């Protein structure tokens, strides 16, 4: 299995896209009923001042059905997933969940994945964790590794082939 199957950077995954599209359409219906654009989500948004994310506008654009525009907008990748918008919305709309669905859609549509997500995913596929044991240093710059600290062995998948077989089902599953 390759990373392409999961992130579909090569060939867009049509099944996954359909599933995501259904989810976004469902969210769009719900939002149209509930969100009254009070702006409370944006006033507490951790990414608002720094990166100009405006969750209430994301909701408004989805309400108008502009899914494609949103999927292609870089701003959806500025959410810090602090969950304040979900917690504080008086109407139980969860902009953060809309953003997750939009980002998933961007990935499933073959858009380039920003940052180190691809590397992390590759690491999960090969050892089960986002990274292997790292060498750190003490305050006085002495290098330290896990095995020098009398800590037990790292817990990670023991049978990597079986572990990958499980994940592969996500990539191959027909919805």
């Amino acid at each position, binding site marked *: 299995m390759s990373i392409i199957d999961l992130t579909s950077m090569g060939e867009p995954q049509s099944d996954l896209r359909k599933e995501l599209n259904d989810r976004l359409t469902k969210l769009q219906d719900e939002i149209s009923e509930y969100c009254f654009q009070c702006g409370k989500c944006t006033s507490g948004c951790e990414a608002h001042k720094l990166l100009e994310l405006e969750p209430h506008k994301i909701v408004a654009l989805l309400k108008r059905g502009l899914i494609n525009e949103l999927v292609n907008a870089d701003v959806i*990748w500025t959410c*810090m997933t602090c969950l304040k918008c979900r917690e504080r919305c008086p109407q139980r709309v969860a902009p953060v969940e809309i953003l997750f669905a939009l980002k998933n859609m961007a990935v499933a549509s073959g858009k380039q994945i920003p940052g180190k*997500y691809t590397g*992390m995913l590759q690491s999960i596929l090969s050892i089960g*964790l986002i990274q292997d044991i790292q060498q*750190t240093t003490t305050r006085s710059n002495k290098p330290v590794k896990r095995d020098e600290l009398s*800590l037990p062995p790292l817990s990670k998948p023991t049978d990597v082939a079986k572990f990958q*077989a499980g994940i592969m089902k*996500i990539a191959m599953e027909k919805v």
Partner: protein
Amino acid sequence: MKKKYALFPGCLMPTEQYAYELSIRETLPLLGVELVDVEGFSCCGEPMKSVNQLLTLYLSARNLAIAEKHHLDLFVPCAMCHLALTECQYILEKNPAMMERINGMLAAEDLKYTEKRHIAHTVDLLYDEIGIEKIKEQVKKPLHGLKIAAHYGCHILRPSEIGRIDDSENPQKIEAILKVLGAEPVNYPQKLDCCGAPLLTNLPESALTKTGQKLQAIQEQGIQAMVDVCPWCHKMFDSRQTKAGETVAAKLDVPVLYLTQLLGLAMGISSEKLGLELNLSPVQKLQEGGAK
């Protein structure tokens, strides 16, 4: 009675945030918690949520199924893992069709998720299960009014709908623990501000700016130290403090400790055993100041 938990380490704590793991393994057994090391855990899936939420759900369910196989509840010291695993339980309980679908995939590893287990984090384990009284009995070297800012972290507080570890707008459990250690918890306006860690993957400059802003505010208020309870928060506030300072053009000088490190110090455990030399922020300031 001893409380028994599978220690779910996640990725970040056991591969680089060693001080958290060391201080957990030193303190909790003395407070009556038995930590069981279980083979075969993987990433919880949380950082993959932006890429593929089904993958997140699958990885979380996989880890829960491993704990289930050992008939164990879970102790999950990472805020992000705690969110992923708790949310997975919440989703699968509400959605039997999804549970079936996930179990179809888990069969590849002969695993099966069937029932809810208790998922504890450091803060509720200390406050709700061990309890303030029991901690008090173990305090041998009180911290003499040390002024401390508590950083809870977004992911242990929200969304409250799925069950989180403290009140989402006014959490006080860490403060209560700090008090019993003899320290003086300080309420500061930025308490609920995010550390920025989730953006480290794709917008590291912005992530570190969030970190720097919060630390700067703490420094300006004359607070002596910060405690945190998540390897991601700590990576930002402690490991990357110098870099974070650069983003806000400030020379940051705030000692940052894991709550379990501070607890250990108050219990009289040596700083070496608690991994204090691994903190990159100036924690020696506290030791010079008497909180040995």
